[in-house]
């Protein structure tokens, strides 16, 4: 049996060895342990080399980095990364090494919670920029709450996120229960829609905003001809056929552009002429690429103003593009702003703590204390729940097949 046993051990060793080897030249890192730090030293920023003695501060982005939603999750990560690279200096000057750690939650609540527990266990982690999905953020923030770890969401619009009144959980985006009704008011009051047909993507986000849209539309007296959810990503034929038969004035889509763009394109292909409206999930240059000329005439509501509304955003977009050679989307902008707020809060928390490393609780309250933060997505103040006090909502329209659309209407809405 000796041979067999050896094989078992060998297989185990092989497996572990592979793990270490699979992602690159790991073996090299171990032997020249003495050599590599030397090699690393000169490449470090000269400013950081001197006072960097007081320890490490880790700031984290958590978003899906694998799977189909990673296109969105990566925007958050890249935005946050850029923010850290640009604005970590003040904290490093206070004597800390700032480390940015991107984490992958795979858009799954289980993995999200596991990552949250991992972050909580690492005492250096003081700030979380995440998550993308409300369905992941809700259970994960329960974990953060137990550790008072500050989480600011760049994407979660679900009311539940802040309605729990956790002191450490905030967001800089709007709420579904504001955005959905805003879309409905626009559709019915401005576009004079009498009948609406609502489609959503069966996610916490899409269905949430669609339901708020429906409630408001019914209140305003419009007739809801249909309310359908679908997880389908490609083949919308069977959804569109009843829409065509119903011929509504407005089709509202609660969801994200990867579905919305395809739905829009296939709708137009099938000669459905209804006006198309969606929430900020459609706010991406990708929708133009996906839908092509079909995008013309479509509306979307968003909290992130276009660069024309925020001059800073244009510079940021340029920098983002030059750095990562891809266009920034709204989640990239939010991810960036969230991380900047985090860095500002950490800096003030360190100062308030007499230069010592702040506790997580101190960082959490410093986040809430951030006043009139001028971000590229607007000026941000938090209310007691962690919502931005006044959010500006824009309604934009694609006049031509070009992103972003032009602003049709601007609303200032206080968080409920």
């Amino acid at each position, binding site marked *: 049996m000796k041979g*067999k046993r050896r*094989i078992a051990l060998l297989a185990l060793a092989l497996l*572990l060895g592979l*793990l270490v080897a699979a992602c690159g030249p790991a073996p090299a890192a171990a032997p020249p342990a003495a050599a590599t730090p030397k*090699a690393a030293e000169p490449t470090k920023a000269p400013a950081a080399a001197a006072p960097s003695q007081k320890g490490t501060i880790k700031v984290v982005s958590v978003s899906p980095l694998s799977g189909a939603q990673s296109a969105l999750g*990566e925007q958050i990560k890249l935005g946050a990364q850029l923010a850290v690279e640009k604005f970590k200096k003040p904290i490093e000057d206070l004597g800390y090494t700032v480390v940015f750690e991107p984490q*992958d939650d795979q*858009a*799954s609540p289980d993995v999200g919670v596991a990552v949250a527990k991992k972050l909580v266990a690492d005492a250096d982690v003081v700030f979380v920029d995440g998550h993308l999905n409300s369905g992941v953020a809700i259970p994960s923030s329960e974990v953060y709450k*137990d550790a008072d770890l500050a989480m600011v969401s760049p994407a979660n619009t679900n009311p539940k996120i802040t309605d729990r009144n956790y002191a450490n959980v905030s967001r800089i985006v709007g709420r579904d229960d504001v955005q959905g009704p805003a879309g409905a008011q626009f559709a019915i009051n401005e576009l004079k829609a009498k009948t609406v047909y609502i489609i959503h993507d069966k996610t916490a986000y899409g269905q949430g905003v669609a339901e708020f849209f429906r409630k408001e539309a019914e209140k305003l007296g419009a007739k809801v001809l249909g309310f359908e959810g679908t997880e389908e990503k490609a083949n919308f034929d069977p959804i569109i056929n009843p829409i065509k038969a119903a011929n509504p004035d407005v089709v509202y889509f609660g969801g994200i552009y990867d579905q919305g763009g395809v739905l829009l394109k296939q709708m137009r292909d099938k000669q459905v002429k209804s006006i198309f409206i969606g929430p900020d999930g459609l706010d991406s240059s990708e929708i133009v690429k996906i839908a092509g000329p079909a995008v013309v005439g479509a509306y979307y509501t968003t909290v992130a103003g276009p660069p024309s509304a925020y001059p800073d955003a244009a510079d940021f977009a340029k920098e983002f593009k030059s750095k990562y050679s891809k266009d920034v989307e709204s989640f990239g902008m939010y991810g960036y702003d969230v991380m900047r707020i985090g860095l500002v809060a950490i800096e003030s928390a360190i100062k308030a703590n007499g230069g010592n490393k702040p506790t997580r609780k101190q960082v959490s309250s410093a986040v809430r204390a951030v006043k009139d933060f001028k971000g590229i997505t607007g000026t941000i103040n938090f209310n007691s729940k962690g919502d931005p006090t006044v959010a500006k909502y824009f309604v934009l329209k694609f006049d031509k097949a070009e992103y972003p659309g032009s602003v049709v209407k601007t609303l200032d809405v206080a968080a409920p």
Partner: protein
Amino acid sequence: MVNRHSISMPFSGGKAPPWARLVGIILYIAITFGLAYSLEDILPRAAEIPLTLFESLAFLAFLGSAMILYYQPIPKVAKLILGILVLLLLMPALGLRNGYYLEVATQVGIFAALALGLNIVVGFAGLLDLGYVAFYAVGAYLWAFFGSTQAGLVLTSIKDFFPLGGEWFFLFLCLGVIVGGLAGILLGLPVLRLRGDYLAIVTLGFGEVIRVMVNNLDKPLNLTNGPQGISPIQRPPLFFMPLLQALGFDLEPRQIYPIYFYLLVILIALIVIFFTRRLDDSPIGRAWIAIREDELAAQAMGVPLVRTKLTAFAAGASFAGAMGVLFAAKQIFINPESFTLMQSIGVLAMVILGGMGSIPGVILGAILVTTLNLQILKALSDWLNAMRQAGTVLNLGFIQYAMKNLPVQLEPAKYERMVFGIVLVLMMIFRPEGVLPASRRKLEITANRETPPEAVSATPPVTGGGE
């Protein structure tokens, strides 16, 4: 199965006398525990040193000590004491030091129990079930429904009863077993006439049906709250709190709950292990194996096909049901995203990776897959990322590579699943029978090989096997 140790005895340490083994295993436990506990103090902090990776490997080795212990021919009492020491004392101690260890250990326990349940269906009875997670979902939603205000939305006349108090949790744990088993029978009755891959696709369909239903049953009657998920879900009460305080432990609930859930999971996992072992050796277990090996022959020998298969289905499903209840309480929040086909496949991968039909193998499979996904791959990508940010230059002797030149497209965190895929393929190629195969299956595989590789020819013929 007279003597399960006679054939597969990995980690047995040759012909060493029992006392040497005892000393060896104690040393092993001490060293791995010590490493997992104190690596973060020992190792210098530098981006080049993959601290968390080493930590998670040490932790994996520590988790493995329970496995190794199992195989040691040392006195039962010593085994028991060491086992209790490892599971009930050292692990929570590690958990207090680093909460993530405990989370991983808890997940390992949950998945081990799930994998053991699936092992009954796939490994013992040979029925390929691709929708196993459906039963897990049934259990989870059972408690989520009654353990939150959700039930009050439906049963409006007795709304004030809900959410049920945390103490009901234990009743629902038992109910989870029953309801899971019932769901297994309900699915099994119509479909168990099917064979092989027809059964696989029907179970896959069933898994999807359950997921789509929980995703959509927020109308016409709001049973599951759809994609929004249900929260908050009640947790079991800390009835021992006064006792702890009397003993002088002044811990907050948020510190106790992880340990509490860990202990609950371990308890249930042990019960599951106990049952599967008994089942494995029982007449019904033999009937399952007979069906797996040859349905026609088994039927001819008088094994009632449908009933036997149904028991396998029900037994497997009931474990999943109970684990689901626990999962809901642990997570506080559940939504349909946790019950996708990928979850079923993950559990199946644990069963097959560890060794179908082999109880220790399946547990090891759960340990490997869970730590790989939750710890090792993440630690690996964190490390590569840290090196990149610190601007480390890798020195391979012949080539030097500055990590910061790594393009963002190759962000290590993005390729964890890819590495997992590679590991799966390699494992299957180099060890198709699993890491710790069941003795019977190993014989079968080696005998089936038309051209035995060196690995097999090196093995002396097995005499007096475990059959």
